[in-house]
């Protein structure tokens, strides 16, 4: 899948994560802010990376603000942001 435009998904509410995707960056990077960064930062980045690979997304900057989301929520917000970014609408 190819990202055509910047996109976002999620909220700043507790147990959620706010994801922003910026395509065409030349390389992939993940910038994460989390209330549980010390304990789960690497796990959250791993989930984000897995979804990017699942959808074949490269050269994107991911900005994520995590409020304690579980893995299923991180995956859902990433997938929603990717599908929104890949749409022409």
């Amino acid at each position, binding site marked *: 899948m190819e990202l055509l435009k910047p996109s976002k*998904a999620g909220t700043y509410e507790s147990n*959620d994560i706010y994801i922003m995707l910026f395509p065409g960056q030349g390389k992939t990077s993940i910038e994460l802010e989390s209330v549980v960064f010390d304990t789960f930062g690497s796990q959250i980045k791993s989930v984000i990376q897995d979804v990017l690979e699942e959808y074949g997304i490269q050269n994107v900057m991911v900005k994520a603000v995590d409020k304690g989301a579980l893995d299923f929520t991180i995956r859902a917000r990433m997938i929603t942001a990717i*599908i929104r970014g890949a749409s022409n609408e």
Partner: protein
Amino acid sequence: MNRLRRSLLFIPGNSPGMLQNADVFDADSIIIDLEDSVSIDEKDSARCLLKELTNAISYQNVETIVRVNPFETKYYEQDIDAIKSLGIDTILLPKADIQSVKDLDKRLSLVNSRIKIMVLIETALGVEQVFNILNATPRCIGLMLGGEDLCVDLMCERSKSGEELLYARTRVVNAARALKKSVIDTPFTDTSDEEGLINDTIFAKNIGFNGKASINPRQIHTINRIFTPSIQEIKYAKRVIEANEKALKEGKGVFSLDGKMVDLPVIKRAEIIMAIAKNIGLVNMSGDNHGN
């Protein structure tokens, strides 16, 4: 015995915090809502969240229902496509009519889905057609009355006392009972009025509803309590059944208990109470209530 549906709790479909803890509130069913509680801009997000949720979490001892968007909206088809193969129990179809129930049944049948349908009766036409709507497919296991939207359609105010819903309530109960299907009452929406909730729930139970929907977890305990048979009711029901067994052995059709005549309707009511009590776990399979 049908599945126990004393309390059904609505959970906003795009709120991960509520979704991940939805089974801790003791509701018999949870209703993940893709309709009114999800803004138009977030319909896609809620569908995706639901899919990932069901892949990751299995709720314990609770029926999982999803309320989709109405048939006439552009979101309906997208909702059904997204959830028809998920591990959910039931779809709650809003503003149901005969055409929409048949359409949903067809879509689910095409993928051999085992998901059941519960119809939300919330239009004046829906109330008038309720028997045929419920009877449109065997996949339909019951109905919920939607009082707020119905009052808009009836062009009247929704009141706490609920006189404006009396006709609809009794009509949907009769239709559902005639077809041996579940019938769930509309939520009581003032979450700070406990006395109003108690009165409204007792009324619903007294006119034949199986249970009541809720929009707030704080209401679940009260609703469950009212729709759960009391120890006195269970003890009396057990005595009726035992006395009936004894009368049958003695070849009696009618007998008396505590000076009152017991006939078939009393026996049937006792059997229903015992079946509910067993379903909740208040009595064991041999009919002994716990703690006695």
